């Protein structure tokens, strides 16, 4: 048993225990889930050092045991720099979700916390799985608790939203399953590392048609999850109707399953197809960035506003990935994490407001900063992080993405940067309408400032936002190392494609090399 096995399976154990607890003692259930999820977070911190120390291209805590003999399906898990932080993001946010649900979830408390733990199990598993079959299992398993979280504890249109969420993802995963089985028949294994090595070495020969269809099979499943414009329509519904904890987990972690899948599987395995299709994918990503921001601007509903801002932010991630540059990849992962923290925090804050006023309409607020200055401050910091203010988390990621795309095609950068400006517009306008101005007596009366529980939620988030924005060296090195490995063969192939251009000898090894190859791509066009 490695530490990673504990991190993966302890939430499942806790889920079973939570189901067995007596349902009348809600305080005990809450305390149990809180302590358990905090413990999981502390345990998961132990993952950092070994991953950091692992040599490039190697997975830490790798474990490869037979699960099912025919067809060969293995329990193959491992962590690299990309998955490490996503796992820790999951374990970090789960206790906060427990805390925010403390008072706001009033019915079927036992089942709520049980599903939250099951969700944690599924999400951690998705990021650790290195066997396609295992990945698919976790991918689908995480769907079920989220479906129930939305459907049972959500708002008015919860049933419609839960169904829509489930069916969208289900349709995408059906295509992915076909692709996975097809890949198995070609490769004779579900093992990600072996298939990747086989494809790169040419041992697994796929013709370009096969590559295209396999890429699309994976891509559509992931694009629905991201969600990439125009497959995003399930997201606003699911976000708005979900309870706060559900929105947080959905926005902060579940959407990352899609971008993680693109980065880990779809792009490295089918680089030619990915590059051949990058044109329209980038256009969709940029459309998503601008469209998401514009739609967010006119939303009267706060949760919907934050949901559309997610569409916009996730567009950056896709853009970064499909720039095929080191900066783009690094930026994509950084946006994934920063968006996880900042949007999670925004949903939590909206949840606080909802608990006080029982409304998500922006118009129902105004002047909140007078009765609740600390709440307003927390919202301000989070909002600035979300906009991409330097020294706060999102800025680093978006900057890296823009830099990465600028190497490939400067037009993309210009259009994508519009999204940054627009995000400032909708966020500041939201803030102005909700927090400034004169508070009505009725509002002041129902708007106490943050209580201890809410401080306990917000303080860690604010610290992380500032930390990620000001000292990237605590986070970025393992991400870059893993990205370089994923990107390496893709760059190598790029040189083969543009053989007409004599490769320039890189002056400074490491740093100049990717830029040089990207330059070649431009000249090749």
């Amino acid at each position, binding site marked *: 048993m490695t530490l990673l096995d504990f991190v993966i399976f302890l939430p499942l154990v806790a889920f079973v225990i939570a189901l067995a607890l007596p349902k009348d003692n809600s305080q005990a259930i809450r305390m149990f889930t809180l302590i358990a999820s905090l413990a999981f977070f502390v345990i998961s911190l132990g993952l950092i050092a070994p991953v950091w120390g692992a040599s490039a291209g190697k997975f830490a805590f790798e474990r490869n045991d037979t699960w099912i003999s025919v067809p060969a399906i293995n329990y193959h898990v491992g962590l690299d720099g990309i998955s490490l932080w996503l796992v820790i993001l999951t374990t970090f946010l789960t206790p906060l979700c427990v805390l925010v649900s403390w008072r706001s979830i009033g019915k*079927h408390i036992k089942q709520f916390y049980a599903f939250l733990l099951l969700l944690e199990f599924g999400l951690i598993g998705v990021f650790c799985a290195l066997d396609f079959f295992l990945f*698919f299992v976790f991918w689908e398993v995480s769907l079920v608790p989220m479906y129930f979280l939305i*459907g049972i504890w959500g708002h008015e249109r919860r049933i419609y939203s839960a169904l829509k969420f489930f069916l969208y993802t*289900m349709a995408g995963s059906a295509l992915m399953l*076909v692709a996975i089985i097809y890949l198995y028949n070609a490769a004779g294994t579900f093992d990600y590392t072996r298939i990747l090595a086989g494809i790169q070495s040419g041992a697994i020969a796929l013709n370009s048609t096969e590559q295209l269809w396999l890429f699309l099979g994976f891509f559509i499943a992931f694009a629905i999850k991201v969600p990439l414009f125009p497959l995003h329509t399930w997201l606003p519904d699911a976000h708005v109707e979900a309870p706060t904890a559900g929105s947080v987990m959905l926005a902060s972690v579940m959407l990352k399953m899609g971008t993680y899948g693109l980065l880990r599987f779809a792009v490295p395995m089918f680089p030619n197809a990915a590059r051949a299709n990058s044109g329209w994918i980038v256009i969709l990503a940029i459309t998503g960035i601008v469209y998401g921001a514009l739609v967010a601007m006119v939303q009267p509903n706060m949760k919907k506003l934050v949901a559309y801002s997610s569409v916009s932010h996730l567009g950056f991630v896709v853009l970064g990935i499909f720039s095929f540059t080191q900066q783009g990849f690094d930026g994509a992962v950084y946006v994934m994490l920063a968006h996880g923290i900042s949007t999670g925090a925004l949903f939590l804050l909206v949840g606080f407001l909802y608990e006080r006023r029982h409304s998500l309409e922006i118009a129902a607020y105004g002047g909140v900063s007078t009765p609740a200055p600390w709440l307003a401050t927390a919202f301000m910091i989070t909002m600035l992080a979300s906009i991409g203010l330097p020294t706060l988390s999102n800025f680093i990621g978006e900057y890296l993405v823009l830099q990465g795309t600028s190497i490939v095609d400067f037009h993309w950068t210009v259009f994508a940067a519009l999204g940054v400006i627009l995000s400032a517009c909708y966020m500041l306008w939201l803030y102005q309408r909700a927090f400034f101005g004169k508070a009505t007596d009725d509002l002041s009366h129902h708007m106490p400032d943050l209580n201890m529980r809410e401080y306990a939620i917000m303080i860690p988030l604010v610290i992380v936002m500032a930390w990620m924005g000001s000292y990237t060296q605590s986070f970025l090195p393992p991400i870059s190392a893993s990205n370089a490995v994923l990107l390496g063969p893709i760059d190598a192939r790029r040189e083969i494609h543009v053989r007409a251009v004599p490769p320039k000898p890189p002056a400074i090894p490491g740093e100049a090399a990717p830029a040089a190859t990207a330059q070649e791509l431009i000249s090749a066009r």
Partner: protein
Amino acid sequence: MPTSADYFRILPEIILVVAGTLIMLIEGVLAGENKKSNLSVLTFIAFVAALVAAVAANSNQGLSYSNMFIVDGFATFFRVLVIGVGILSLFSATQYLKREHAESAEYYALLLFSVAGQCIMATANELIMIFIGLEISSIATYILAGYLRDDKRNNEAALKYFLLGSFATAFLLYGIAWIYGTTGSTNLAVIRTALQAPGADRTAILAGTAAALMFVGFAFKVSAAPFQIWAPDVYQGAPAPVTLFMSAGPKAAAFAVFLRVFMTSFSPITNRWEPFVWASALLTMLVGNFAALMQTNIKRLLAYSSIAHAGYVMVAIAAHNQIGIAAAMFYLAAYALMNIGSFAVITHFSRQGEKFVRIEDLAGLGWKQPVTAGLFAIFLLSLIGVPLTAGFFGKFYIFKAALDANLVWLAILGLLNSAVAAYYYLRILVVMYMNEPGEATLSVQPVSVGISATLWLSAVGTLVLGVFPSVLLRFATNSSALVK
């Protein structure tokens, strides 16, 4: 003279038939109402004895009674499956029969006869034997479908099932006659040899017609489109525990003979029937899933779902490779478990006279009887095909077989179909967990021991096959090689 090995190999059938006959005779001797409960115990003992005999017979594989029967892994698999279905449907029927004041020896005897017929189908190595087994099973099931004589719906179900069923059986028999006329034999292996022989091309059209006629007969029995029309009415009308039985046992046995005949006898003319099975598979999935979307009666919904699932198994037959056979076997076992579980919940919930069979009636069951609803949720998730349940691996193997056979489009359309199917299963989950309890849920009674046993056994089976499918799959893969 039959040898002792001959008897040993068909001991399960002998036990079932003898027990069925005995029970009919004993009833007259037994006096008083309570005594009738003893009959269910006797039936249970007969089933267990047959199960033991079936497993034991597997250690002594071979032909029996002048090549009329064959005991191989395939036969054992289906014998154990149909006897298992018999046991579970017995568990879920006892309480129901008491509730409807209809406990009598006939029910148990017919159940035994029906299972005996299905065991004969599983072991038959010859078309006449297949026909006899099919008839024994079918006639017993026709009567069971109309078991509650005073109920209009029961009568309708039985009559429809009987008339259409006899019609379909006639097709099957006609097909048998054609193939006998063409090849001069009813033995499966001999037919295969005859169709492979040089010069068989001249009679290929005759053999193809025979295959088509037999396809109609089998497609009816497994409720594959376009011969599925009877299924919704019959499933809805028949008593709930009978529907439970019908949707699992006779269907599995019919698929067993379907597989054996088409993979053995008709394998030389695969290219002739494969397109039809392909089309039928797709049509079955489409009809089942899209019709199920609009149902409000839960028995009818599960009937259409059962049609859709037959479509998935047809995909495995269309793949006509060895992994396809294994996949179909695995799927039928998985399907039997999850379907029996679901119908057991309906049997329990519907109350006397099957008052509560609308989907909305289940509102709030998740909070009123969390255990029952939780188990039902497992069955539904398995029917959807969510990983870690048997249903997922079943689908996975089937579509893997399809891709192995290069049926890429069938696999894609089939899996998209299963995404459509998720909608109507989720609707049941929605009602159970996301709606407020209504009259039906508030008056729900505690779960009886028999139903509870059925539910737990099916749920454990569904999860075990979902997490550790190798156990069963290895056996299925090994036995699939024998069907040649």
